């Protein structure tokens, strides 16, 4: 506020006291001290590109599907929904806000538990058909906090852009999953020698012809993969049954791995005696066999890129609040808050820069919910001189990887994990 305006306000108040009347001109003057003509709301555009999506989330409209809060629509059939940024202030993502990604359009609207079974079949001595009650009562309940992140989370950041689900950063979530240990179920099924992989399939089916990826979605894990010791067949998510869209009645939990393996409405576990060559293993969800999984469009065209199935999630961290949508008065103490996670041994450090990466300060980490969970972080900051300020955040994981400032590019649009930045506008406070 300028001195001139302050003086005019005081003289106005004096006039008010003296005359006991409100002059129209004077009223306009006092309102001028704190009000402005509101501007129209600025909506995000309907699509972004060919440049990178500049917004934290994807740009679709908010829609409410059954058992869900309004989430960001990517596609309606099959259903793909993204979690808005503000939900990530909490270490656990609420079930109704948890992102949704199905591959095939014929996805469950109802499940009859009188009929439904989890089948364990294939190269086993004792095939199993388990009811939900069997899973709950015959096996010890285990719980684990684990992040599920879509392989294509942040795909809309890639340059050049690649086709696929144009996710912003919200195709991720963290929940406390409770269920039966996969190992115990396998022990009960008595695996035969010569078994090499486990194949998982849910209730979803597609309209494509048989034998194609557009008809069935199946994912497999190697029997020699140590992650199997952590895998759960979960019937509970944050202490509640799973929403239908997140995999009711049970889904596979593969801690540290991308969401593609976390098969929803899991109903078949097949023990294979040879590697799975179905489309979703052999062709889709593969990353270049290069450091960081990055390559170039030219190398892809030249056929130089060898690929491997996607697996663990690289370290990532996010600033959640402030989100840059509101101006902050200069000199105000502000809490910078966010989350970090990694598929490689949890989070050991989060650093924040308020000068666009020139210098870094260590943030305070929140409660440790386990190495597969989100870890919240916080740093108090006195907003500096008016102007644009670049906030950046980077995390280091248990295996010593620190996020880099490098772009990631591969044709599938996977593994984006670059240092996140947010511009904050600081305004004058007087």
């Amino acid at each position, binding site marked *: 506020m300028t001195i001139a305006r302050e003086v005019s306000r005081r003289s106005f108040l004096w006039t008010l006291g003296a005359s006991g009347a409100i002059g129209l001109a004077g009223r306009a003057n006092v309102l001028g001290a704190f009000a402005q003509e509101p501007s129209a709301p600025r909506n995000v555009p309907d699509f972004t590109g060919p440049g990178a999506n500049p917004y934290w989330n994807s740009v*679709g409209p908010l829609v409410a599907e059954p058992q869900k809060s309004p989430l960001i629509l990517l596609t*309606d*059939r099959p259903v793909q929904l993204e979690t808005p940024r503000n939900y990530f202030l909490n270490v656990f993502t609420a079930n109704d806000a948890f992102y949704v990604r199905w591959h095939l359009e014929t*996805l469950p609207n109802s499940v*009859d538990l009188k*009929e*439904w079974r989890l089948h364990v079949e294939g190269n086993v001595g004792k095939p199993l058909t388990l009811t939900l009650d069997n899973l709950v009562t015959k096996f010890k309940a285990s719980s684990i906090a684990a992040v599920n992140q879509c392989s294509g989370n942040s795909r809309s950041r890639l340059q050049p852009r690649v086709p696929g689900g*144009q996710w912003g950063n919200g195709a991720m979530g963290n929940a406390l999953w409770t269920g039966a240990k996969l190992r115990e179920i396998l022990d009960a099924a008595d695996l035969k020698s010569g078994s090499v992989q486990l194949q998982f399939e849910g209730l979803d089916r597609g309209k494509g012809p048989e034998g194609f990826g557009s008809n069935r979605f199946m994912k497999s894990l190697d029997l020699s993969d140590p992650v199997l010791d952590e895998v759960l067949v979960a019937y509970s998510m944050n202490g509640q049954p799973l929403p239908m869209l997140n995999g009711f009645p049970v889904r596979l939990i593969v801690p540290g791995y991308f969401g593609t393996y976390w098969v929803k409405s899991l109903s078949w576990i097949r023990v294979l005696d040879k590697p799975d060559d179905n489309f979703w293993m052999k062709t889709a969800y593969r990353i270049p066999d290069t450091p960081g999984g990055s390559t170039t469009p030219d190398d892809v065209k030249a056929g130089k890129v060898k690929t491997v199935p996607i697996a663990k999630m690289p370290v990532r961290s996010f600033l959640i609040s402030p989100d840059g949508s509101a101006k902050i008065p200069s000199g105000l103490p502000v809490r910078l808050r966010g989350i970090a996670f990694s598929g490689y041994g949890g989070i050991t450090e989060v650093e924040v820069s308020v000068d666009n990466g020139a210098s870094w300060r260590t943030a305070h980490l929140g409660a440790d919910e386990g190495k597969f969970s989100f870890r919240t972080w916080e740093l108090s900051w006195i907003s500096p001189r008016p102007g644009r300020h670049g906030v950046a955040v980077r995390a280091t994981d248990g295996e010593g990887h620190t996020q880099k400032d490098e772009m990631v590019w591969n044709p599938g649009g996977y593994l984006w994990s670059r240092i996140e930045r947010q511009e904050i506008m600081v305004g004058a406070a007087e």
Partner: protein
Amino acid sequence: MTSLKRFALATAICAFLASAALYAQFNAGFYTLQGPGSIRQTAPSAGSAGASYEIAAYTLYPAMLAAGDGEQEVASYCNTCHSTRYITMQPPLPADTWSAEVNKMAKTYGASIPDDATEKIMHYLQSHYTPENRKK
């Protein structure tokens, strides 16, 4: 009836029985059409005490496809496996990326689209959804 025809018939019956067995345990693939607008609250309902757990149909939000030659083919063929929001969600993509996408649908995913419709779909996408010509 030739043995080949008998075999085909038997296969079809087996496939039908197999899918009937699969779908006895759950319902799937229900969508309902709803115009855009404000988001309404849903009334709480826990359903019956039986073993069937059901939710309402998922909602269709039809995409606003660009008007032009080939729109009908896109709306009918592409819509078989997925809604056309799969198209409008994409960033503007170069023409050769669109032809690769259409070929992927036909060859990799087995979509049965007649050749002339494939041509029309490709041309439509390349006429409305590239960096040079995408409007909305």
